[in-house]
């Protein structure tokens, strides 16, 4: 997993904006309603880390109340890429469990299902987008749940 390129917040904001629609809700930011400076500020406030692998963007935010857990996000629908990223977090961040906040109906749902996450709840009307409130599903996995890639 050496070819993960780490992006600082401004570069991450630009990369998220360049992602065709894949980035709305990524770690809670939204290139449609926030400009790059606002996104960079939010990523910094969250203590988020964003990486690029080819066309895909991957990100995590450590859980300050329980640092062995991280919230993760991806703009790619490829479960294997996410599994590799989680293994990377396991070895470099000593993460033992992962959470993902996935807008209902977004491509990332299949990604997380595909690599061993299971849904543990739904946040009702958590986001507003294109004129409507949409639910956000909560996905969870322990390091043991992850499929062997």
């Amino acid at each position: 997993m050496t070819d993960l390129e780490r992006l600082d917040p401004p570069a991450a904001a630009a990369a998220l904006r360049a992602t065709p629609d894949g980035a709305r809700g990524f770690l809670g930011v939204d290139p449609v309603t926030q400009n790059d400076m606002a996104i960079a500020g939010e990523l910094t406030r969250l203590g988020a880390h964003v990486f690029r692998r080819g066309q895909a963007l991957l990100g995590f935010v450590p859980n300050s109340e329980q640092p062995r857990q991280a919230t993760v996000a991806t703009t790619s629908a490829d479960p294997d890429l996410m599994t590799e990223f989680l293994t990377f977090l396991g070895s470099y961040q000593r993460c033992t469990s992962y959470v993902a906040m996935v807008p209902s109906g977004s491509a990332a749902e299949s990604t997380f299902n595909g690599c061993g996450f299971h849904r543990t709840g739904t946040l009702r009307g958590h986001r507003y987008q294109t004129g409507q409130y949409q639910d956000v599903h909560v996905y969870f996995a322990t390091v043991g749940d992850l499929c062997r890639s």
Partner: protein
Amino acid sequence: MMLRGYRAGDLELLSGTWLSGELLGLPLPNWPVLAEPATVGPPSDETSELCVAPGTGFVRYCDVDWVHRRARLEIGVRREAVDSAELLISAAVAYGFRTLSLRRVYGWVTPATHPPPYLCERAGLQREATIPSAVWFDGRPVPREIWAAVRRD
């Protein structure tokens, strides 16, 4: 229950022996004598809103998001005012909907702290999700639940 704007004189209401970030910030028993109390910073910018119920505690809306019309709610209750907790949480939800005109108010509830079960329901909050090992408490990671109230309009 009347909520009013925060004043510098209310600073001591902002710390206590509750689990930090908790929706139901009730004082916990056997808090280690050398452990720092949980503290919340005084309101200082638009990202959070904090109101005070004098003598009882505070209600705090963090991560206020005006596009999604939501905020994460925390309350902190003084040891002497625990029996007013229900009034405070109900006032907090009502203020979020009516005065801030938010559409969604949500927060963390940690079962390991044994909060009285009816408190949230009576304030119109429902459990939406559980996240295992989401907070370190009393020597081990324990699950945390997300409870929320959504305004019907």
